[in-house]
């Protein structure tokens, strides 16, 4: 399992300002086509193997991710490929669902291996008239790290599938009843413990005083 995103720092990249595509004569009657392109360039000369791309949505309905990759060593020019097409970010482009949510696109969701990536292009679409503007915020790209050879989760999960076996219980009380009564006793001790540390309303007063005349409004 890979580490959580918090342990890995995002790659420093340049996020170009979004370009909203226009239909028609931009000088007289600009109408939004509902399509916007955001280019994210990675540091020059240092292609990245991407682990995941994270961002916060702002009213974008669909996002398409394209990658410019340059294979190492070869003299082949870099190539653009689409790695994810029209990922829905909002359940319904006209309504709020998903409009301000946080998203993450993991490499396993990508149709093309995001290795040796030089540039990322995000194509945002918002077909609905309902919104004044749409974009993505706080775009971050996390590099792929080689995972530690630790025990796979599925290994210990398979250890648990011995659910159906009933151990031989001659003369012994039923484990379920024992465990539930022990749990009750444990819960009672926990309650007693918490009672001890927070002596009645002691933690809510100051030197025995609990006269409150004003609520904080911040």
């Amino acid at each position, binding site marked *: *399992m*890979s*580490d*959580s*995103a*918090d342990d890995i720092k995002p790659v420093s990249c340049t996020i170009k300002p979004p370009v909203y595509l226009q239909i028609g004569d931009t000088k007289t009657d600009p109408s939004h086509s509902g399509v916007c392109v955001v280019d994210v360039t990675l540091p020059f000369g240092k292609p990245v193997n991407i682990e*995941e791309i*994270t961002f916060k949505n*702002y*009213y974008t309905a669909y996002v398409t991710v394209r990658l410019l990759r340059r294979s190492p060593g070869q003299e082949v020019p870099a190539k653009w490929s689409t790695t994810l097409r029209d990922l829905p970010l909002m*359940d*319904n482009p*006209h*309504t*709020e669902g998903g*409009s*301000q*949510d*946080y*998203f*993450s696109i*993991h490499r396993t969701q990508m149709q093309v291996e995001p290795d040796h990536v030089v540039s990322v292009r995000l194509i945002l679409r918002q077909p*609905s*008239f*309902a*919104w*004044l*503007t749409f974009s993505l915020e706080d775009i*971050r790209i996390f590099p792929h790290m080689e995972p530690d050879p630790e025990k*796979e*989760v*599925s290994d210990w*999960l398979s250890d*648990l599938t011995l*659910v159906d076996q009933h151990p031989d219980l001659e003369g012994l009380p039923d484990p*379920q009843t024992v465990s*539930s009564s022990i*749990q*009750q006793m444990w*819960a*009672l001790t*926990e*309650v007693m413990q*918490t*009672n001890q540390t927070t002596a*009645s*309303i002691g933690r*809510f*007063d*100051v030197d*025995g*005083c*609990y*006269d*409150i*005349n*004003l*609520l*904080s*409004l911040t």
Partner: protein
Amino acid sequence: AEMDDGTELSLTIAQIVQRLKGSHLHSQIERQAKECLHQPEIKLESLKEDVQLPPSHPSAPPEHLKEPLAYMRKAQASWEKRVLKSLNSMSTELEVPLARMRPAVEQKELTNKWNEMGTDEPDLSRFRPVYAPKDFLEVLIGLRNPNHDSSEDVSIKSHWGLIQVPLNVRDIPQLRRAYSELNLTSGQLGIDDHAHIHPGIYQKFTYISFVVEQDSAAAQQYSRQGCPTGLRADLWALILNSTNQPQDVMHYEQLMAGVIQHDLLVDNLIYKDVKLTASNDDYYFVFEDFLYQVLLCFSRDTAVLEHFKYNSATPPRSYIQGETINLLWTGVIPFHGFSMYVAPLCFLYNEPSKLYSVFREMYIRYFFRLHSISSSPSGIVSLCLQFERLLQTHLPQLFYHLRQIGAQPLRIAFKWMVRGFSGYLSTDQLLLLWDRILGYDSLEVVAVLAAAVFAFRAENLMEVTSLASAEVGSCIIIMPIVLCGSFFKS
């Protein structure tokens, strides 16, 4: 290859979850998990990492988990500020502290009359409810998304209603699919009983299997078609995972001790509300004493606050001698009619700690959503929008007519929805409605019922000429679930 491992793992997990669901172990785990959340070391923000979940998306900040839309958070915060300001003013004007320790004599007195607080006739004339549902409605009507283009020539569907935020609400075909158990061809308890469909034996078997097996999920599914009166109390307790174990009784007694030891300004508001609403109600006045016992304790139950990580509201704080403290107060300010959330439950539970436990669960799962601003599908904003959309789509003539005479339908239906219809339906009808809220784990059915009432009364309402007569024309409802079912059919 990496893709395959991922899907295999997900499948295994899904299988395990499936087998766990509906088992006694599942309810136990749920309870344990709830208790664990009380531990100080567990922080909701880091819970994901602590439980070692595979990274799906970056941990969104806690306020985002409460409410993803920034403008809704802002609106809730400013509403809260307004209400707290009002409470502060009340405290200053009336010269009553927001909270104070009771002197020993007073404590003794209160202990002695704990079971008959209703006989007390304190002078509450100076106290006014902090707000009424109609004040809250005005706030909801004023909600605007700053990114929403509401210029006339751009709107795709002109919306005749009062709610102007574009939340996603389900339409009739979607509702019909989601609430298939309510369609008119399946038997509904409490309605079809008299049609000689004898529920008896089958219901008893299912009851035994749920309650003995402690199968919360099955009880919930069962509740969708209504609970038999005699079994409802146990079924609801099972669905809500509300037990009456020694630690629950102890917790309730601690809260009682809190009520005895200190007095809150809000207590007066509770007294006032009970006197004004439940005590005046033909069905509920007998439970007056219970209502005080539950609501005064609930006010002080700070354990409730920890569940508010998913509530867009924030608990209030104060100062003593310069130090900021959390209050021994949930921060729930009873608005006019709040006690009606508890009243119907008095028919089901007669032991105060049990009644308390069930009410608390109902509040932190459902009722709080009826008086806070959020984008949740069960939140009051979505319910209002859904009501208006259903009405406009299916009864456009009626909607248009009412608008013309200055009687926006939401102004009539809002007070029903905010209270979950408590006080507007006879108790047996109300409990059948609340069966479905529990069964579907959603308040959506409240919005559908409100629309169904209008459909039922459409003929009468087409003839009214003012808001006042529209109000009269739409009260007294019968057989709410039949109404819902027939509404789905139309």
